[in-house]
């Protein structure tokens, strides 16, 4: 009897599900679906991008952006990409950074457009993928931009804040993006790594088998270093020890606002980061001790969408050689709460920088025109 009730319940549930699915199938018939692969489902930057895509772009263009669950491994990324393809997504935006070369090929084999929305492909992967017909391209800060962003941060704290002893968080070094930022930061502070300065620091680290050893740092500014690739307890303990030494500032090449903002706010230690212009970061700058933020803004993803829509509409933006593009996009930098608020109000979900008018003007451009538009400085004055 119990089994019979259970089976009845199961059948009823299945029928309800089928009915629900059937209804949803009818209503989404003409919407263009785009899958979004994400490794971070709760970070401020990720939420900003998600809000822009789902609450602004989707409504303006009758698109649907289907987000993946949190992607943790390459096999999950591939499986989720296959799921998106099975759901008839016309394109996939990758922000998860798990074996991108493989995903580009998978999408190409299935005639689904593939674009990178956060970070950049490795040079090897990009070289191997750029000729794929369905690989749209990538827009994001390139390594030179990453280096210059770190450099500006270092120079600011050396020249304007006169720091002499600081804490530094290396995030996910030897991830190239973080390593280039670190090279810039050390150079800006006037420090050296194994005697190297500038981008030579990167080559030195890679020459040592990609092992970054903070004891090789020398210079006037004393640095207590914390690496991000360690177990969570050890990282927090190291940050705690650095704070206990009362540094002039705690400078970071990424992820500090996500992990340590409350700790640093509580300790009253000024800190910097490279992240994005989100309300939480604004709060840390206004009410906490976040003193410097180089960041992306939510609608900076706009050109990626424009490129995808161009491709879907049959007006793909390709380089002169007919290949996928790789374009750099800079950061905005706020050093005060007022500056932060100015940036934030200039790029809201209701009124983003890359609004419909601007997006419409990007769709279907030639490669050269598109490059010029993406390169334009849109920093609010």
């Amino acid at each position, binding site marked *: 009897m119990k*089994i019979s009730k259970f089976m009845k319940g199961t059948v009823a549930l299945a029928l309800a599900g089928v009915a629900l699915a059937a209804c949803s199938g009818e209503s989404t018939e003409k919407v263009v679906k785009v899958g979004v692969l994400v490794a971070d489902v709760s970070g401020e930057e990720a939420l900003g991008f998600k809000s822009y895509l789902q609450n602004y772009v989707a409504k303006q263009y009758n698109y649907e952006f289907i987000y993946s669950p949190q992607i943790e491994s390459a096999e999950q990324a591939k499986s989720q990409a296959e799921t998106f393809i099975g759901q008839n997504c016309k394109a996939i935006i990758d922000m998860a950074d798990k074996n991108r070369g493989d995903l580009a090929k998978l999408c190409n084999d299935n005639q689904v457009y593939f674009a990178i929305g956060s970070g950049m492909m490795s040079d090897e992967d990009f070289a191997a993928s750029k000729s794929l017909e369905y690989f749209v391209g990538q827009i994001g800060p390139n390594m030179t931009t990453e280096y210059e962003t770190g450099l500006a941060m270092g120079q600011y704290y050396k020249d304007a804040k006169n720091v002499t002893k600081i804490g530094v968080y290396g995030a996910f070094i*030897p991830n190239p993006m973080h390593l280039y930022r670190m090279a810039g930061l050390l150079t800006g502070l006037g420090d050296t790594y194994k005697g190297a300065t500038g981008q030579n620091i990167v080559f030195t680290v890679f020459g040592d088998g990609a092992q970054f050893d903070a004891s090789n740092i020398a210079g006037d500014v004393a640095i207590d270093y914390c690496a991000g690739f360690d177990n969570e307890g050890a990282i927090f303990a190291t940050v705690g020890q650095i704070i206990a030494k009362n540094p002039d500032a705690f400078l970071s090449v990424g992820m500090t606002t996500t992990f340590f903002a409350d700790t640093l706010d509580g300790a009253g230690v000024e800190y910097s980061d490279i992240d994005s212009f989100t309300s939480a970061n604004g709060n840390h700058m206004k009410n906490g001790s976040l003193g410097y933020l180089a960041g992306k803004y939510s609608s900076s993803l706009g050109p990626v969408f424009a490129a995808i829509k161009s491709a879907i509409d049959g007006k793909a933006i390709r380089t002169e050689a007919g290949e996928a593009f790789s374009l750099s996009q800079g950061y905005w930098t706020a050093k005060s709460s007022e500056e932060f608020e100015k940036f934030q109000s200039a790029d809201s979900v209701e009124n983003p920088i890359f609004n419909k008018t601007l997006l419409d003007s990007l769709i279907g451009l030639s490669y050269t025109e598109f490059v010029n538009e993406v390169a334009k400085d849109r920093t609010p004055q």
Partner: protein
Amino acid sequence: MEELASRNKIKFDKYRLKKLVIALLPLVALIALFVAYLIILNANDYNVSMNLKTLLNQSIVLILVATGAIFIFTLGQFDISLGANTLFAAVIGTLAYKASGNIFVLFLVCIVVAVACSLLNAVIASIFHLPMFVTTIAMLSVLTALATFLIQSEGTASGTSFSITLPSNLVNDLSAIDTPAFKISVVVIFMVLMIFIFNFTKVGRKMKFLGGNQNCAKLTGISVSLFGIIAFALAGLGAGLGSSMTVVYAHTVSTTTASSIGMSVFIAIVFGGMPINGGARSRIYSALIGGISYNLMTNILFILFQSMQGVRDGLVQVISGIFFLAIVFVASINYRSKNLPR
């Protein structure tokens, strides 16, 4: 007297019917889920063949690892280190494949390493007279740490994790066998072998006996240590094949590879109708049925709650958990009988 005999016969028939229904329930549930999945895919105008291919890719590694793990579960034991074992074997296998360029070496190394790690669990438990699941907890930490060390030493940083990626010529070789036909063949061969050992040899029967009543089994001369070692070796074989298939599919290995396998194996086996205490009612095909059912259910839930993206992932987890409890409850109806398992 006759009336009593008739009443007992009716009771016995009812008992047998209940047993049969419960035995068939996982298969019925699989068929129901599959039909519902097809209806939902069609209703949403999804690409059915692509979704079935995805389902196959999602289930292959889980089925292989879970089928091997059935032998451990039959003994009433639990191996929490299966995910770490799969990861470690995949790392060593990938490095060996990178060095040799030979796919056969990839499979061989993955299997040898996984079986060796699994055997180490059983041997340590045997030497120190520890419950086997205790050694698997220690092994989980050791294998994860070793794999992480190797990946960080030999791999490159990508995103927020390190990974060992294969060069394009080796990826092309792997892509050639990354086909449904090859994957299904591997599963079929492995399943046939495991079904034979489990159902048609003394090894399988003695394991069921051990899982049902260890003291009784010991008194009849069955060695707990010996069959523990055999069970872990077979589980290692499953983990080894699973790790090779992971590399064949993903073409890379990172610290997060196979991270969810350990828990998924347990859920899949229970979904497939395996008694949580092992013993005589253990079924080797539970992994196959459960592995597919579990992925079917998850996929269906993700489609149904697609529009509720803010709460979708949490909702799917909660509903999966409720289903899991419901299945354990229904399955346990059969164990509440005072009779010994027949």
